[in-house]
């Protein structure tokens, strides 16, 4: 009878050892303890120059496996190249190589199981189930999948508990090189590991080539191996990220079939670019950057890659499509990302676990429904563009010009001012990149996108609830409240910005405070919040995110930053009220504070111009008169069935009554948002508060989010606290609260039908566009809007309570007009004139406004939104009478929606003054202006812009520019000299043009932006970049380098990552032994022990 050893096929276990730790004892012991009868052990020890290490390792080996062979290498060639030595050290093909790292511990029967399965399945390579070294109950790998871009898709999730869910033998594309059994002949045929692939990706390359030859690659879960897998700790001197990317790219470039290679190359480039963009926002930028470096690095290596391709082409025995079928379709990285979304981290009282989420198609369906509803409801917006109603003023045609204006130091709004320009201009300009500079599309995206962003934000807030229904309720309710349709109907862009920003802010704030998703299995505990421990780095990252959200919102609507601050404070207070910890409350407050600081800092220098008056709306004269019900139901516009939204308050109360533990905490937070901001909105509506406040739509956004969170909380409470309990009052109350949520979303569904959110057919800007002349023969002019602030098409400056004014130029209104330039002397002059007008102290207001270029005065009556012909807002008392009193203001034939007065004394914005008019421009103040002759003014420099140089012919006299005085406006005469500027009419720009300044060439006018502004903008751009980096998971590369340079012993471990020529290494082989015939002889007698040492 043959011995068991002689029946079993020979297996040579090759362990590559490099300065192992204490665990190595277990590794060797496990090897020695294998029950496989025909196993030989070979230890390839690298770093032989370190005699101490060699002695230690040798000692360990000799203690546990005295019959093992040991071979020494100087330097560290890497695992693959070292393991390849088995081909030289072992002769024969009818056996197997078990290739192992030095940080694995095999179960006693592991080799046996692997060999059995390899035979049974006729495989080429088999690998065991790898589990965590310290936590054998957690799976590490059960083989690996690979996509066509060489990206590994780990079949198991991080920390996935081994519940035998993967215990079936299965074909995989890759088995990790930590421990694999390979047929010796196959290993030799495919040339072993690719010597150029070290540390990372060697197994991918090996298995890919094995597949070429038609060999199967299997995972055998019955064989279990513990694996430490801490290469990055052991080799901190290597850039593992770059190595991974480099080898991945190399494998794809050399192993992809020729017919697929061009397309794959294009896909790789596109994927890498997309990865770069996404990486910025997902904290994976370093990986993306490594991919980019690797991709670019392929180019100079093309000759070598081609040679390699020729070499491996000989191995191909199966067609490429068959191989592709073995790979994962699409992107593993994307699949991995999506899969991580199917799991969730739950926070308990003293534990954090990650579990599979309840799978359901409901969220997908709900999202599809929400997106469809928004798209269908906005179909007219999408097909025809967003109408220019309310704040929905169109974007300017040229993003480049907008960016140039942003960089300019001159703000042309109103009467113009040297002032930092709004960050929103730059943001819009950058946004247009996404729409390929199509500004109309960007405008549509900016409006509809804000709605979707808000709903998405609500969905993210909803992730704090572990219940699918609760998460659904959070974003469905937030999307369905009538506030959305009301804001779209009336063009309230500021409100939409708040709508988009608030849920994201709340979501990030709770993450920054460490409030995680509470473990739903802890129903019995009164867990106030699921508090996760955050590292400082995570905390900083969330703070940076908060700042970004606040800063971005403030870039478009600074008042939203204030709102976010208020929301943060309310949440902090509500947390204490709900019995939460003071520490959580403090973190909420701290996050809010940091966000506010960043909102201001990232909007520098523009934020220096923010004042309460510029952030808030001009007051209305008395109450707006919507009433409690309209406010409570977000009744900004006449939306059918909006009253049903009242039901959402029932669900909120239901959450307060029914909720327990963290459901109650969130119900309290939701209630406080509703109570605080709802009260403010009601009091503002009644005119009780005399101060200027944000628009009611802005105040109602936290109310909407509060109701959404309330609905989510009541759903969660119903699932966890009511359902399944004994019958009592809680059951019917819970059902009622659930029904209330359903009823509350009905108005949102109804609003979709219109297709244009009931926006008016015509807007004030379009009416004025047809009413006011656009020819330039009379020069540039300005338009003064005067009346109820709610009806002005641009933000109003408050003149008196209920009366506002705004000045715009003669260009069509666009989004730039939404931001008001800071006050200047010219603004003060205009206010003085309006005061005189109001007091009846002038009868020639037109004459007094003429130096400011105001040719038209428009008093809006209706806008078909706030004020309709059926229910018009009253024109401020005495306004029309005062204007009609003026002898030089002529009431023109106006549309019914507005009264338009023409200033018969108007002067062009840019004017050449002569005669008495030129003399009059020297006046220091308003006195005497009424009697001045202003008729001798001819238009010049038509279309002058601060971002470019304009030229025109001038004659002797005075050049008048109706903008607030600023010496940075430079007029260069035709003969060359720059003329000295002076005050015109006391407040504007004027230059005395003497005869010698008039040359043959045209004069030029330009605005010289201060260079310090450019520097400041660069600094702020750096701040944005720094904040973006802070949101990413990128580590400071300088810190790594510094660490390496300080720790010399780490560097001394290896050869700086380059491959070491094996021939050279073998020249230093101390063992020098051969086991050539081990496999053929199937015995241990032939082992050569030339050096006399016993192993």
């Amino acid at each position, binding site marked *: 009878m043959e011995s068991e050893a002689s029946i079993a096929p020979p297996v040579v276990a090759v362990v590559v050892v490099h300065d192992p730790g204490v665990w190595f004892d277990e590794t060797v012991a496990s090897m020695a303890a294998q029950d496989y009868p025909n196993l030989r052990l070979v230890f390839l020890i690298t770093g032989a120059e370190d005699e101490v290490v060699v002695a230690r390792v040798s000692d360990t080996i000799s203690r546990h496996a005295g019959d093992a062979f040991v071979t020494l290498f100087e330097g560290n060639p890497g695992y693959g190249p070292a393991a390849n030595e088995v081909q030289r050290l072992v002769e024969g093909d009818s056996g197997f190589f078990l290739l192992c790292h030095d940080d694995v511990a095999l179960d006693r029967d592991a080799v046996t199981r692997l060999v059995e399965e390899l035979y049974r399945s006729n495989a080429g390579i088999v690998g065991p189930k790898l589990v965590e070294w310290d936590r054998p109950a957690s799976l590490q790998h059960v083989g690996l999948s690979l996509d066509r871009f060489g990206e590994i898709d780990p079949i198991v999730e991080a920390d996935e508990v081994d519940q035998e869910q993967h215990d079936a033998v299965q074909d995989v594309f890759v088995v990790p090189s930590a421990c694999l059994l390979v047929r010796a002949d196959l290993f030799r045929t495919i040339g072993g590991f690719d010597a150029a692939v070290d540390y990372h990706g060697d197994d991918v390359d090996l298995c890919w080539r094995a597949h070429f030859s038609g060999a199967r690659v299997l995972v055998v879960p019955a064989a279990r191996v513990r694996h430490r897998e801490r290469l990055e700790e052991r080799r901190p001197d290597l850039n593992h990220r770059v190595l991974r990317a480099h080898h991945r790219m190399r494998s794809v470039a050399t192993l992809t079939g020729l017919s697929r290679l061009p397309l794959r190359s294009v896909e790789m480039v596109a994927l890498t670019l997309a990865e770069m963009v996404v990486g910025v926002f997902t904290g994976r930028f370093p990986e993306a950057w490594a991919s980019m470096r690797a991709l670019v690095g392929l180019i100079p290596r093309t000759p070598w890659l081609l040679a390699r391709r020729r070499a491996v082409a000989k191995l191909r025995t199966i067609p490429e499509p068959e191989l592709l079928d073995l790979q994962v379709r699409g992107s593993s990285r994307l699949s991995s990302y999506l899969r991580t979304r199917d799991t969730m981290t739950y926070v308990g009282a003293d534990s954090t676990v990650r579990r599979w989420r309840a799978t359901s198609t409901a969220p997908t369906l709900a999202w599809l429904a929400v997106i469809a509803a928004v798209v269908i409801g906005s179909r007219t917006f999408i097909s025809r563009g967003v109408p220019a109603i309310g704040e929905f003023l169109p974007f300017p045609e040229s993003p480049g010009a907008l960016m140039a204006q942003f960089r300019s130091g001159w703000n042309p709004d109103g009467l113009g001012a040297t002032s930092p320009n709004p960050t929103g201009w730059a943001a819009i300009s950058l946004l247009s990149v996404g729409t390929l500079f199509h500004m109309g599309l960007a405008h549509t995206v900016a409006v509809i996108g804000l709605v979707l962003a808000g709903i998405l934000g609500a969905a993210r807030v909803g992730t704090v609830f572990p219940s699918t229904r609760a998460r659904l309720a959070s974003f469905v309710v937030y999307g369905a409240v009538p506030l959305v349709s009301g804001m779209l109907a009336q063009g309230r862009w500021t409100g939409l910005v708040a709508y988009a920003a608030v849920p994201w802010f709340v979501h990030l704030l709770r993450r920054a405070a460490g409030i995680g998703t509470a473990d739903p299995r802890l129903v019995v505990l009164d867990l106030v919040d699921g508090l996760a421990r955050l590292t400082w780095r995570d905390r900083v990252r969330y703070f940076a995110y908060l700042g970004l959200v606040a800063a971005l919102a403030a870039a478009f609507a600074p008042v939203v930053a204030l709102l976010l601050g208020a929301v943060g404070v309310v949440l902090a207070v509500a947390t204490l009220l709900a019995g939460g910890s003071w520490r959580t409350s403090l973190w909420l407050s701290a996050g809010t504070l940091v966000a506010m600081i960043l909102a201001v800092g990232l909007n520098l220098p523009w934020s220096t111009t923010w004042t309460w008056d510029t952030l808030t709306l001009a007051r209305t004269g008395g109450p707006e008169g919507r009433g409690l019900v309209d406010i409570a139901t977000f009744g900004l516009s006449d939306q059918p069935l909006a009253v049903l939204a009242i039901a959402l308050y029932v669900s909120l109360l239901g959450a307060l009554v029914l909720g327990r533990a963290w459901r109650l905490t969130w119900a309290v937070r939701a209630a406080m948002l509703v*109570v605080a901001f709802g009260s403010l909105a009601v009091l503002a509506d009644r005119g009780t508060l005399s101060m200027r406040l944000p628009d009611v739509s802005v105040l109602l956004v936290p109310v909407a989010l509060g109701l959404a969170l309330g609905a989510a909380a009541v759903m969660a409470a119903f699932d966890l606290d009511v359902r399944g309990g004994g019958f009592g009052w809680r059951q019917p109350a819970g059902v009622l609260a659930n029904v209330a949520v359903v009823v509350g979303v009905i108005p949102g569904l109804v609003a979709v039908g219109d297709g244009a959110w009931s926006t008016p057919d015509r807007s004030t800007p379009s009416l004025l566009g047809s009413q006011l002349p656009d020819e330039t023969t009379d020069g540039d002019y300005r338009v003064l809007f005067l009346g109820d602030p709610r009806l002005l098409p641009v933000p109003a400056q408050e003149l008196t309570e209920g009366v506002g004014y705004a000045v715009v130029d003669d260009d069509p209104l666009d989004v730039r007009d939404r931001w008001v330039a800071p006050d200047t002397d010219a603004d003060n002059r205009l206010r003085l004139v309006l005061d005189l007008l109001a007091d009846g102290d002038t009868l*020639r207001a037109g004459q007094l406004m003429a130096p400011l270029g105001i040719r038209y005065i428009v008093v809006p009556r209706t806008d078909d939104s706030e004020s309709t012909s059926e229910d018009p807002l009253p024109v401020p008392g*005495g306004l029309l009478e005062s204007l009609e009193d003026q002898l030089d203001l002529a009431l023109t034939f106006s549309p019914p929606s507005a009264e338009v007065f023409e200033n018969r004394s108007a002067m062009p914005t840019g004017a050449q003054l002569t005669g008495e008019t030129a003399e009059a421009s020297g006046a220091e103040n308003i006195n005497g202006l009424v009697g001045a002759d202003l008729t001798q003014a001819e238009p010049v420099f038509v279309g002058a812009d601060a971002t470019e140089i304009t030229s025109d012919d001038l004659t002797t006299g005075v050049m008048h520019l109706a903008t607030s005085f600023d010496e940075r406006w430079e007029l260069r005469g035709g003969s060359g000299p720059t003329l000295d500027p002076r005050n015109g009419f006391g407040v504007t720009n004027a230059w005395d043009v003497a005869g010698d300044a008039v040359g043959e060439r045209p004069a030029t006018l330009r605005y010289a932006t201060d260079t310090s502004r450019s520097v400041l903008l660069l600094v702020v751009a750096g701040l944005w970049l720094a904040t973006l980096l802070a949101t990413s998971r990128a580590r400071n590369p300088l810190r790594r380098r510094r660490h390496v340079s300080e720790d010399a012993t780490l560097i001394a471990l290896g050869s700086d990552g380059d491959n070491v020529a094996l021939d050279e290494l073998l020249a230093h082989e101390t063992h020098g032994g051969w086991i050539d015939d081990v496999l053929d002889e199937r015995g241990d007698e032939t082992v050569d022990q030339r050096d006399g040492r016993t192993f």
Partner: protein
Amino acid sequence: MRRIPALLITLAVIVALVVVTRTRPDDEVPVFADVQQSWMPSVSQRPAPTNWFCPGVPAEGEGRGGEVVIANTTAGVLRGRYSVLAEDGEQVSERIIIEPGARLDIDVDETADSAYASVVVELDHGGGIVEQRAVDPDGDSLAGCSTTASAQWYLADGFTEDDSVNELVLSNPYDTDAVVNLGIVTDEGARTPGEYQGFPVRARSVAVIDVADLGAQSEPIVAASVTASRGRVVLGRAQQFAGRERGGFTMTLAAPAMSDQWWFTIGERTEGVIEEYRLFNPTESDLEVAAAVLGVPPSGAFSGLATIDVPAGEVTAFAAGEVEGLPEGQHAFVFSTVEQPGIIVERVLTRTGSRGRATSVSLGGLARPDGFVANNWYLGTSPLEETTDAITIYNTANSEAMVEVRTLGPGGFAIVRGLDRIRVPPGGVVSTDFIQERALGRTLLVSATTPVFVERQIPRDGPLGGTSTAWAIPLDA
């Protein structure tokens, strides 16, 4: 237990909001400018620009013409501009400078060739006085100029019997065309002539409408109303009386608004004087108007009070002689109603003298809407010759008023001896003759120690003689 505080707060706030919002707050219309209710033309002391819109004077025809007088009552130079508007549009627009205490006469008919021409005077601050004198072969007529244009104008009197001419002079001082609707009221009721609905008055021009063309020929009573549907205008009325009841020429300013009180200081029950009042009720409600005789204490059968019913949309004529027991001599009248917005009252005073019958028509005087009655009244134009009862003063106070008349010269106002201590008893009416040379042809200031109303009479040139009555111009406090 931790749900209790939040639940209580939430419920409390909800309840509080429900309670607070049970009452709807009063709607408030925002106010841009506090538009003053209409008052009679007055002199402002504010350093703010003021406009004066004169109702118009004849500007063509033999013996016809007119002038506008601008007086500077301040101690500083008064700058401004005047424009002459005619039927063909603006004729002239010139800047003016008036030295302190000086006066500027603008000869209107020299600059315009039109049936009527009106003058707009813009002054760069208060303290100016502007009034006009229309000249007609049948006599002069003095009238104040309005300080506001209006979209509404009313005339209670009108007379087209016996070929008397009654013309409406519409001036549009603005740069925008105005569109007006005309309505008239005769004994036969109210009418709105179709061709004068949407009647355009071109910018910076004058339009003249003969009331006879409105279908109101040979009417003893023709009240008129003008409503501008677009823009604002100034309405004057020229009347040339040719009948046996009335005689002479008058040019007066219409009333821009109704009022619940109208004051008249010149009233006289004497042989040869016919004192009649026309009460026009443009509203849609019947009114009861109280006519109180002032300056004459009630005694015996004389109660000093009469009640007049003025039906909606009609004109009621009221003769002073109808007041039972009204004694001979001077008196004043006040007409008042408790109904808002009130009525329009004009006085028709016809004196028959040696040279014939001369009729003067005057709109009543007003207290300012806040009840203010001036102590100081200006006369831009005083009689050029010695005049009996040149000014008539009614003392509205319950205490005696001491009145003095001062004349304006380059050095300011100077006392006119003989006119410096005029006593007016409480509620009394006193007329004063101007016989002092320093009071003739000058700009005068009548100052009283109590609130008073001051009317004046200026002798007319022309064949009919008589006087033209006009209000002095109160100084706005």
